[in-house]
């Protein structure tokens, strides 16, 4: 009898727990929506009216990103502070999703977009990641009027506006620029071996050979995740094709059977002969560390690595480590840009545009970028706010040909990129040029 009633009690507790769990979600939802409109002191709280209220002025804006790392989070928070200062009546919700270099955030975003519950605005790389996915799926509002209203058309480089446009309509506002075709090198190692910064691919290969003979690992690579190798390949492609044909390659106007693509694959293969042996066990930070410690001479990485060299490894720019454009691409700038757009079906588009306006303003960009370690997307930002590397890069940005990065989703869609990453991963080990070219053609044909 006792046993039976104990079992009954247990079941009863289970049931209660189940009910309580179900109720939990509702409660959090409730608090969320009250948080959203703390200013509104409406007595009536039927859900329809709640929605209607938050769509008016003084509503809320939810900013979706994957900026949770050290410098980038500081930048985002400073930007939010600036916005709240200007619009104290609008509540800001920072909906950043951590992990996987944006992979987790993108998965969450995809679910929300497909469930017709878009965030007010979200981080997306300019180029294919925006145009071939969300714009192609008809989920984004064009921002042409916004650009005209705030007179932004000539505040960004034309090539950059092209990257966030599809069929003549503009779909997002760029906030920052990173450069992908940068080589970072250890100054002491270069000096000891009497090496000058190479400017062409042939000089580069010579330098690699010299360093190798001197017993130094010439190039550090960390391709535990394949994109770092893809990044080297895209820079070699840019070098052999030049910026115009490089863009044409991704537009499908130049084929992968082009001789210069083969040349790039062969050069890539040569370069791979000079990388550290344990490349597959390292990520890009571990590879940069090899350069910082002088065990390897140089590494190719986007300029977020600059922050790693100066902040994490505590090295001094142009004293301990130097930088130069990837050989053969000195006149070019491989662009990685974070942008924010306006999804369709957002309740309060005008409030979101207020945020985009702050984000696109000189003040907004000069608040965000020095902290994030990137340069502003606007051409009229204040160079005195940036360090030596920043001002150098800002100058290059205005004087170079801009090219969209493949490894960061700007040149081609994410699906395409995952497949190319797979082929690059295979190529790094097998180094079979014919098979690589054949596979690249096959992938290009599928899409």
């Amino acid at each position, binding site marked *: 009898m006792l046993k039976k009633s104990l079992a009954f009690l247990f079941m009863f507790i289970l049931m209660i727990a189940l009910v309580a769990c179900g109720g939990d979600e509702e409660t959090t939802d409730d608090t969320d929506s009250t948080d959203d409109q703390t200013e509104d002191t409406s007595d009536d709280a039927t859900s329809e009216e709640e929605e209607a209220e938050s769509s008016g002025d003084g509503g809320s804006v939810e900013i979706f990103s994957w900026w949770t790392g050290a410098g980038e989070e500081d930048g985002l928070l400073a930007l939010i502070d600036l916005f709240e200062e200007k619009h104290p009546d609008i509540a800001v919700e920072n909906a950043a999703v951590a992990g996987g270099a944006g*992979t987790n955030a993108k998965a969450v975003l995809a679910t929300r977009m*497909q469930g017709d519950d878009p965030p007010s605005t979200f981080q997306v790389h300019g180029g294919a990641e925006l145009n071939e*996915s969300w714009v192609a*799926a008809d989920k984004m509002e064009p921002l042409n009027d916004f650009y005209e209203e705030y007179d932004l058309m000539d505040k960004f480089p034309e090539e950059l506006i092209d990257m966030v446009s599809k069929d003549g309509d503009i779909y997002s506002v760029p906030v920052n620029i990173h450069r992908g075709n940068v080589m970072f090198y250890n100054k002491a190692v270069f000096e000891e071996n009497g090496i000058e910064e190479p400017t062409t691919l042939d000089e580069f290969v010579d330098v690699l050979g010299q360093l190798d003979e001197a017993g130094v690992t010439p190039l550090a690579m960390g391709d535990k995740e394949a994109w770092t190798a893809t990044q080297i390949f895209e820079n070699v492609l840019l070098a052999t094709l030049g910026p115009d044909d490089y863009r044409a390659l991704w537009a499908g106007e130049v084929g992968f059977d082009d001789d210069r693509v083969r040349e790039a694959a062969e050069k890539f293969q040569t370069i791979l002969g000079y990388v550290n042996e*344990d490349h597959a066990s390292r990520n890009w930070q571990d590879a940069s560390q090899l350069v910082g410690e002088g065990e390897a001479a140089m590494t190719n990485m986007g300029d977020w690595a600059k922050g790693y060299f100066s902040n994490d490894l505590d090295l001094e720019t142009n004293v301990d480590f130097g930088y130069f454009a990837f050989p053969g691409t000195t006149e070019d700038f491989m662009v990685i840009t974070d942008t924010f757009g306006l999804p369709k079906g957002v309740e309060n588009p005008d409030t979101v545009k207020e945020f985009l306006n702050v984000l696109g303003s000189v003040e907004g960009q000069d608040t965000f970028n020095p902290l994030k370690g990137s340069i502003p997307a606007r051409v009229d930002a204040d160079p005195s706010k940036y360090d030596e590397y920043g001002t150098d890069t800002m100058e290059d940005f205005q004087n170079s040909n801009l090219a969209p990065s493949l490894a960061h989703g700007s040149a081609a869609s994410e699906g395409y990129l*995952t497949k190319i990453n797979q082929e690059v*991963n295979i190529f790094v080990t097998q180094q079979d040029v014919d098979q690589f070219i054949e596979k690249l053609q096959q992938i290009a044909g599928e899409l």
Partner: protein
Amino acid sequence: MKITRDQLMALLFLAPSFLLLIIFVYGFIGWTGWVSLSNWNTLVPDMSFAGLKNYIYLFGDYRFQADLRNTVFFTILFIGFVIILGLGLAILLDQTKKANALFRNIFLFPMALSFVVTGVVWQWLLNPSTGFNQFLQVFGIQPKWYTDTNILAGFQWESIEFGLPVAMIAVVIAAVWQMTGFSLAMYVAGLTGIPEELREAARIDGASELQIYRKVILPMLTPITMSVVIIMAHISLKIFDLIYAMTGSGANFVTDVPGVYMFETTFRGNYYANGAAIAIIMLLLVAVFIVPYLINSRRGAS
């Protein structure tokens, strides 16, 4: 047959969890199966019927073929070592009755860690330039562990080289280190369950200790071995976290497994239908082990 009050109550209490299971487990398995037969390979859902297109693509895909090869060798090595080491240690513990509990706990402890922790730790230990190799270089050997791209006893099969990927051995070491304690605990429990009288009887009949183990004890442990195989098989076929934390896909996909491929192709590449097809194939692989076991244990029960 009349339903008694007790039975009615039981049904009433079972109903909520039953309903939730039907929807959130079996319902979504069905949904995944349906997605795997669709054309949904972009961000925008496209549920038009594609037949077996996604499956045909996968079985012709270099990466998936490599995944299947890796899974086969990982499963065999992992289960094999977990059983041999677990049983061996359990028998040793069985000999020394005194410190039995202490050692059992020491060996069981790694199981308390998550695979992610194990993965990160072993990634450092087996890193070719920092870990064990610092010690091993005294003897002049420098194994490349999980960065090794060689395939042992390889031969060309479809588009891949079929054989034992050397890099997988490093992953097996980490997995075995974590799970051996579990099989050890199972075997220790099994050994204590064998009545001392049986051994006595065998001894009186003149059997040597070795014979007692071979002819009496091991056969009595068969059900335990079965359970260990089933549990380890479903862990190894679904393995994701250990690989993801420790090695990633590896150069030339030498340490890639279907779980990692499924995650990347679905959430990085937006190939939802392909990802769903991988999930269904994984489910079928696990079912190959589980279903006969379930049928068997049902027969035993009735």
